[in-house]
């Protein structure tokens, strides 16, 4: 994954590299052109000056010859040669590479050849200037360009860092808030003000989206709570009518069996409904009472209530106490947590299986024998029934999870040595 800011950075860097590379020949051509033009102008000027000065000097034929001789001998960059025919030769500009005896290498020379008239006689004037070598120019320009490119990239990196720190800060803030957002807390998110238009729009859109979600979630919660609340009376009536029917002496054995059979799904309906109401109440944080709970005591109480079910399944039950688990929380929720976890362990143990309850420092764990690992992803979800057993409301562990969440405890499942392990770690407050 690339970071958002690295993308334009990479593109910018590559673009700058291309432009700078292309700029090298362009710079060279421009520099060379200026150079050559300047030299040609200079030659032209020199030529005119020489011609005029000779004219103004009015030298005699003998003097002229002597001067020309010494001129040609001493002047390094120009020569004046007499020519016999007076042919109107045009000025010519040429470029030549020849050996430079002073620098011991071949050099490029720019020259001007023209015919001047001194004393009505034609002379061939030749002016030459050493011009910088093409590869030397390119090398110099290239060097400078690479240096500048280095500076440019360095600048990009620095700017990038600074921009990402300041300009993207609101975005990072938004991201942090979104990561910690929890729909089940039913609380919207408030973003910090930002002066960047895009982020303001983003924050507005997210705020609206979250508000809608929270609203839908609350409606759904209210619906479940209302529905289960409304179901209470019909369930109570059903149970009542069955009890009355049960007392009828004219009931045949077959009918009694049927009445008994109805009790079972009715019990399940009762439990599911009760659990849904309980979940709704926990969701709404209705359990605000808190007292110091000794979990060992609660486990012993629960164990007494469930003793009959433990012996009915011929389970071996033992407790391993290695520490004290005293936690401040709601009494009802603590009892519900322990009852749910212990009855869960009993229900899911095979006959003659084993249950171990561990009480450690700020931790309790319920172990029961089993065959294979359960699916962790769905284990604590509502109505994710892992067995075909009918009394399982599919809500027991969801309630456990919800209680842990409300109290900031940690619930974990593990499967080790043929034991399902459900452990609750209490956080210290």
């Amino acid at each position, binding site marked *: 994954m690339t970071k958002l800011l690295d993308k334009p950075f990479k593109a910018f860097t590559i673009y700058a590299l291309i432009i700078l590379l292309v700029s090298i020949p362009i710079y060279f051509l421009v520099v060379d052109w200026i150079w050559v033009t300047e030299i040609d102008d200079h030659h032209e000027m020199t030529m005119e000056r020489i011609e005029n000065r000779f004219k103004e000097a009015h030298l005699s034929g003998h003097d002229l010859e002597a001067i020309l001789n010494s001129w040609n001998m001493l002047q390094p960059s120009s020569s004046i040669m007499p020519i016999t025919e007076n042919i109107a030769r045009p000025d010519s500009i040429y470029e030549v590479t020849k050996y430079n005896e002073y620098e011991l290498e071949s050099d490029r020379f720019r020259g001007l050849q023209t015919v001047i008239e001194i004393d009505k006689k034609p002379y061939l004037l030749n002016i030459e200037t050493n011009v910088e070598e093409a590869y030397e120019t390119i090398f110099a320009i290239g060097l400078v360009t690479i240096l500048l490119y280095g500076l440019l990239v360095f600048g990009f990196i620095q700017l990038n860092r600074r921009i990402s720190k300041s300009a993207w800060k609101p975005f990072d803030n938004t991201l942090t808030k979104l990561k910690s957002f929890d729909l089940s807390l039913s609380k919207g998110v408030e973003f910090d003000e930002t002066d960047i238009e895009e982020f303001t729009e983003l924050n507005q859109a997210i705020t609206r989206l979250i508000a809608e979600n929270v609203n839908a979630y609350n409606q759904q919660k209210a619906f479940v709570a209302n529905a289960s609340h409304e179901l209470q009376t019909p*369930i109570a009536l059903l149970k*009542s009518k069955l009890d009355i029917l049960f007392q009828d002496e004219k009931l045949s054995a077959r009918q009694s069996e049927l009445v008994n059979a109805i009790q079972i799904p009715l019990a399940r309906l009762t439990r599911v409904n009760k659990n849904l109401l309980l979940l709704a109440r926990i969701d709404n944080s209705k359990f605000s*009472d808190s007292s110091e709970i000794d979990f060992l005591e609660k486990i012993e109480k629960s164990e007494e209530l469930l003793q009959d079910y433990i012996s009915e399944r011929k389970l071996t039950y033992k407790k391993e106490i290695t520490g004290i688990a005293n936690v401040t929380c709601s009494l009802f929720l603590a009892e519900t947590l322990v009852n749910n976890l212990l009855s869960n362990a009993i229900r899911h143990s095979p006959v003659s299986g084993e249950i171990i309850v561990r009480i450690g420092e700020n931790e309790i764990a319920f172990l029961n024998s089993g065959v294979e690992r359960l699916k962790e992803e769905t284990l604590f979800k509502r109505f994710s029934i892992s067995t075909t057993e009918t009394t399982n409301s599919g809500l027991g562990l969801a309630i456990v999870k919800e209680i842990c969440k409300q109290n900031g405890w940690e619930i974990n499942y593990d499967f080790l040595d043929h034991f399902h392990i459900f452990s609750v770690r209490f956080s210290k407050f």
Partner: protein
Amino acid sequence: MKILVIEDEKELASDIVHYLSGENYRCETASDFATAKEKVSLYQYDCILLDLMLPGGDGFDILEHLRSQNKQDGVIIISAKDTLEDKIKGLNIGADDYLAKPFHHSELAARIHSVIRRKQFDPSNLIIQNEIKIDLLSKTVQIEGNPILLTKKEYDLLLFFIGNKNRVLSKSALAEHLSGDVADMFDSHDFVYAHVKNLKKKLNEQGYAGYLKTIYGTGYKWEI
């Protein structure tokens, strides 16, 4: 014995009346706040069954009204609200018991039995039924003067049966009575058989197993 059933769900009220009618009880009903308040003000009852959510008012107000008049009628709250706070509030205001809906009528009958017994100010705290004598304080049982040793669960069952004499009691009602709330987490309540069997055996040793009848495929009945 007079019982007032304050319950807005008429069907449920009539079922309660029907279930209790076999006993030595005379039942009256009130289905709204005003009627209920009027009745508790005018008359005295041995036990009042009080629903909390009533048309026209809150059941707690009736209880407060009753106690402010210094009336000592036994009160059992029967409510769909089964939070700990409601229970504590109810008991603090002066209810004698709190039973969450939905309940088995047998459970309600046993609770009424227990409340009335406590209200009778019987200093000996004895339940005597023919040859059987139960001392509620020491939780001991004697048959014709011979003590029989019962486990806690067998003792609870015996009281439950006596509070529901001549009624057919289902296995699930017995399991709920013994294990309370956790009972509905389980499908099978076979352990009830074992406890009843043991109780019956102990009664039989004294020659009085005849009261406790097994109704095939249905449950049990304490017959007098």
